[in-house]
């Protein structure tokens, strides 16, 4: 692939905000990808990464709210953000329909994230030019 080729990316985030630097590194990468004319097919949250989709994250006012920053980024660029259903249910991230199905007291999935299966990731592996992972570092 020559340097001029435009690419389609999928970003997979497996590290949680505040427990890893993954969401912030991924966001800077995503911004640079778009700025250089590339496309982002989707963002897929897996494992602890699903915590990024929480609507209830409230860090101190002098720290960046990475969940909010990602919601804004996805919304303003109309990029799909998915939280893996199996990872999300185990970690207490649920949307309205899961709330009803499991008779839970609330839901906390932030817009525009949606809940999806691993099929979305498989689709990325098959069709995105590059799948880049942002793991828990440490």
């Amino acid at each position: 692939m020559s340097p001029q080729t435009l690419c389609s990316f999928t970003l997979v985030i497996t590290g949680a905000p505040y427990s890893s630097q993954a969401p912030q590194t991924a966001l800077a990468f995503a911004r640079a990808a778009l700025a250089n004319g590339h496309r982002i097919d989707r963002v897929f949250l897996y494992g602890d990464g699903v915590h990024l989709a929480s609507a209830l994250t409230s860090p101190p006012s002098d720290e960046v709210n990475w969940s909010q920053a990602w919601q804004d980024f996805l919304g303003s660029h109309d990029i799909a953000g998915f939280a893996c259903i199996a990872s999300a249910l185990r970690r207490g991230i649920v949307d309205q329909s899961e709330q009803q199905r499991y008779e839970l007291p609330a839901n906390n999935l932030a817009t525009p994230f949606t809940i999806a299966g691993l099929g979305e990731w498989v689709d990325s592996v098959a069709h995105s030019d590059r799948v880049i992972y942002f793991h828990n570092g440490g």
Partner: protein
Amino acid sequence: METLVIISHAPYCDWTGRESLDMAFSLAAFDQPVTLLFTGEGVNWLRKAQQADAVQQKSVEKNLSAAPIFGVSALMADHKACERYGLNKENMMPGVTVTALSADLIERYAHVVNLS
């Protein structure tokens, strides 16, 4: 366009190994070729006679032995890690190819996943 899923996390201490397996099985379910490679502490997933219920978890031994049926191309284990953790033909579950994590191995796969 084969994918290599590397499992390097120790068993039972977190869900990373299971979630890596889920990825491999999902690829297989959608007819995408996939191979599993166990490295580092991850090779301990391959020991026979694990009793996951002792820590109130589910065993993955059955899932792993069914991997070929579900369409996973191969189960591989890094030989250095097997040596380090004393895994051999006697105490390792059947159907695992012992090999070496190396650039030559990586070269065979278009996509490599290593949850860590």
